[in-house]
């Protein structure tokens, strides 16, 4: 279950998986909210233990996980983000492109995306995508690719 570092990598592999298994592959977006645990105070001097009084109520955090899953071959591709700046692009451009691939529309225009904080990374890291030619070949696709040193 590889998590990809960039949404572009995730999208490239997901498109490849969809091309190989267009009917069984599904894309799930999970938006989850988790409460942030208040930091425990290290001082034990206070006698009252029942009041764990946090310094202030911290807002719960949300995260977004995009998952491409093919139940037949068991391939799972994931991308996780917590940045609001990525939502529109992911939901519209990335899922839209995958939606077109699902629908069987052939001429899918190439779109490139960058993560919000990956703008400064050199373009050389955008390795040419490995297209999964068969259904099974997509299985290890995520793990083969190593990113260049930072």
């Amino acid at each position: 279950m590889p998590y990809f570092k960039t949404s572009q990598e995730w999208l490239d592999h997901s498109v490849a998986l969809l091309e190989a298994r267009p009917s069984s592959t599904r894309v799930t977006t999970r938006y989850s909210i988790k409460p942030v645990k208040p930091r425990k105070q290290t001082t034990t001097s206070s006698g009252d233990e029942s009041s764990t009084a946090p310094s202030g109520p911290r807002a719960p955090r949300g995260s977004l996980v995009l998952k491409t899953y093919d139940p037949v071959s068991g391939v799972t591709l994931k991308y996780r983000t917590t940045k609001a700046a990525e939502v529109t692009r992911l939901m519209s451009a990335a899922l839209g492109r995958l939606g077109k691939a699902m629908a069987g529309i052939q001429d899918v225009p190439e779109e490139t995306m960058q993560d919000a904080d990956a703008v400064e990374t050199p373009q050389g890291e955008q390795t040419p995508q490995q297209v999964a030619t068969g259904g099974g070949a997509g299985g290890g696709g995520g793990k083969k690719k190593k990113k260049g040193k930072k």
Partner: protein
Amino acid sequence: MSSGHLSQDEFFDKLGHLFNHRKSSDHGAIYLTQKRLTYDPSEQSTTAKLFPDLLPDKPLPIIIKATNGKSKRDRSDKEKLSTVVQPHELEAFYVRYADVCKAGMTLLKPRDKSKKKAKAKKKKATS
């Protein structure tokens, strides 16, 4: 999914409610799924049966589902939505979809400029 699919307007409306409901609590999740909507394969010829999905004669609709992730224990609280998007509607659908999601996913981190600046500075120093 015996409940039938919603129209897109209804779907977006209810999806908005789903997100709003989530806003008031401090935990939980919303699941959105998209998948090709396949038809009964029995009507296809043998060759088409072998590789029915690789060469569809015409674009197929896709189905979008949304749930609040409740199952079994809290079945009564479970909310399920689904809608079917025809191929020619995809573009318009995803524009609205992204808008609704952007509006609903309020607990993600907003763009942090100070961090970005620090990163850029660091990079300059190393190069």
